């Protein structure tokens, strides 16, 4: 059970030396209790205190790091079951499946099609992070050949293989990229664990039931391997949801650290070849505790929907999503196109730019820095005022970049019209509609 700040303080050296960066030991211990600072910031713990504390202050759910370089990823590390309780930490990642049962041309095609999904959305790269390389039992040589192809694809790798010999051979060619070896079960756990440990990679643990998985994880932990992920995939969607929820809930709510590992959900196994069903299930597992979601052959259309959802869910509820301030030329707008001003709150930007795009009218959408607040909130907080707008115009040199002198402002801040006109002489400030949906009709008069 987690200790309180006072309990930790009793074990502290009580020197008030400030070396940890906190003014007193008491303050430091309070922060440790909240998980805000690691306990090793203090060099003066007694051995006894360390032993007591390291167990109880360690996070309930481990953060597992896999992959290397630009394909390095963090999984897990969650502290709550629902995002409103605090925030979710490491977004769920996606994998595309290839298999040793596929012929070479199909594998190349699958990799090429997976690689097409690679774009940016509100400052985040959206792409398929993993290749899930399935072993069909048709010989280690065949498997190694496929793994080699995967290793060249510039993605992190999950080896889905419970055959020790094939796994060992496959790791030889890809272990430098820190893949996940997914394939331990109750029968082969010790052997697979030895192989994974020798190669320095994370081991994925599965089983026929959640009880069996639990026992296998316990056995692996007892043998000293805590670099694990749990493959929660069951026989069907229903069992997979049960496993995913029970693993996370047992961990975070019932504080059982043996379930404190990230999860793998294999949708190609639950709904083979059914793209639409995989989308529905992936949406569910984005909300309910999938750390890596394995798809069959993900499409761009699926990605647009699922990455949009993921980006929403993994935003910190205390920090709004923002877009970069600047000039966004929509529908082929040039320097003579009318200017329309709004704030950098991502939702506002999406609604406004979406409506303008629908209107097909060329518009220079000016996004000002309003700390990611919506129009009225930013206005009330003084983050969206004639002064901040003037500053934005100077900083981004709008007067020289744009020849048009018509500026549409959001209808909700109509009161600012006079002040803006005073700050921006020469501009014709027009009050736009109250809601974004009315823009399509409104903009017709200005193009």
């Amino acid at each position, binding site marked *: 059970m987690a200790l309180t700040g006072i309990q930790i303080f009793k074990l502290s050296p009580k020197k008030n030396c400030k070396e940890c960066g906190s003014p007193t030991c008491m303050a430091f211990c309070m922060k440790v209790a909240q998980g805000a600072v690691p306990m090793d910031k203090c060099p003066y713990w007694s051995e006894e205190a360390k032993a007591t504390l390291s167990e109880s202050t360690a996070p309930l759910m481990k953060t597992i790091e896999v992959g290397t370089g630009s394909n390095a990823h963090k999984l897990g590390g969650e502290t709550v079951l629902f995002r409103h309780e605090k925030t979710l930490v490491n977004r769920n990642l996606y994998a595309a499946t290839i298999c040793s049962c596929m012929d070479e041309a199909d594998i190349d095609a699958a990799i090429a099609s997976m690689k097409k999904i690679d774009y940016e959305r509100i400052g985040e790269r959206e792409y398929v992070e993993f290749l899930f390389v399935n072993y069909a039992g048709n010989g280690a040589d065949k498997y190694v050949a496929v793994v080699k192809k995967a290793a060249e694809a510039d993605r992190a790798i999950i080896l889905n293989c419970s055959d020790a010999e094939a796994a060992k051979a496959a790791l030889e060619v890809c272990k430098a990229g820190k893949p996940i070896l997914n394939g331990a079960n109750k029968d082969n756990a010790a052997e697979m664990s030895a192989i994974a440990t020798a190669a320095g990679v994370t081991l994925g643990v599965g089983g026929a039931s959640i009880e069996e998985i639990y*026992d296998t994880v316990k056995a692996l932990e007892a043998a000293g391997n805590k670099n694990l992920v749990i493959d929660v995939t069951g026989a069907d969607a229903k069992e997979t949801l049960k496993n995913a929820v029970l693993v996370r809930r047992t961990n975070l709510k019932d504080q059982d650290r043996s379930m404190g590992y990230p999860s793998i959900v294999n949708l190609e196994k639950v709904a083979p070849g059914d793209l639409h069903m995989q989308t529905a299930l992936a949406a569910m597992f984005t909300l309910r505790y999938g750390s890596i979601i394995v798809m069959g052959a993900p499409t761009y259309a699926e990605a647009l929907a699922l990455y949009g959802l993921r980006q929403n869910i993994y935003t910190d509820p205390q920090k709004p999503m923002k877009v970069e301030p600047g000039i966004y030329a929509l529908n082929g707008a040039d320097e003579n196109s009318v200017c329309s001003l709004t704030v950098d709150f991502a939702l506002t930007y999406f609604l406004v730019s979406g409506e303008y795009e629908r209107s097909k009218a060329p518009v220079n959408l000016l996004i000002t820095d309003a700390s990611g607040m919506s129009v009225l909130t930013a206005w009330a907080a003084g983050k969206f005022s004639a002064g901040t707008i003037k500053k934005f115009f100077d900083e981004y040199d709008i007067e020289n970049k744009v020849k048009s002198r018509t500026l549409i402002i959001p209808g909700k801040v109509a009161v600012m019209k006079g002040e803006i006109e005073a700050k921006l002489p020469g501009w014709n400030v027009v009050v736009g509609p109250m809601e974004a949906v009315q823009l399509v009709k409104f903009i017709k008069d200005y193009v």
Partner: protein
Amino acid sequence: MAFNPKKQAFNASINAVTLGAGEKSTVIGGENTLPFYTFDAPMANSPKIALEISDDGMASLQMPGMKAAFEGCASVVDMVKKAEELHGISAICLHFEGADPNGENKSVEECVALAKEVAEATALPIIIMGCKNIEKDAEIFNKCSEALQGKNIVVLSAREEDYKSVGASAGMAYNQKVGAESAVDINLAKQLNVLLCQLGVPAQSIVMNLGSSCVGYGYEYLSSTLDRVKAAALAQNDQQLQMPIVTPVSTETWNVKEAMVSEEEVPEWGSLEERGIEMEIATAAACLTGGSDLVIMKHPAAIETIAKFIDSLM
């Protein structure tokens, strides 16, 4: 130590509300667990899907797959009859888009006449969705509630501005179900339920429309609102939030960029129809996972998938 997970069924439950009358009436709500947590306790009633049909009929179907499913239909009534044959549809949502005074401005009489025709043509429960114009909607809801007495319809929605007139007519005078619509906020949702109950609308006659958004477009607000409402209703036994949740999905998903921008403009995105379907599927699945007891959808392919999704989890 063997694995012994704690069950988390609650002592409180969501109200079970019957929609429609007769053999095809359907019950939503009733569960005392989080959505699809059948390992805690069985879910009393499976979540349901309603098909959105616009008063514009066939003209409102923008995708080939939608048109194909209703091939040969000439009128809204034809479409409703056809819908009965489609798998997974438990209710019809009649969307009076054309009533908007800023649009076609169809008269209230016209709308009521259509609602009556639809009610005669189908035994499926009927949900009446307005045009977002407060005054016009209130009139449509009142008149439809009167005309369809005994059919146990749902009107979407009673809002802060018009809950008195909609609640008094649909909820009290004509004994229909009232959808309480709030703007993606647990406090606003609760407040509206309290107001409706104080007015005299029975709690059992209220369903909640907590607002809607498409995945990628501020869905986090809806997601967290759903999570919080279910937690309050079940874990804290908050009776003012135990109404089942109805979420319009199609009205949001088919208006976002991904479902609108042509294939010529963004060739790499692929089929426009497929994009829209995926947006609708992902949004509906996310809503159901969060706690919607009924989702309103449009594309037959998306509906088929979500029906299968629900079946596979029950």
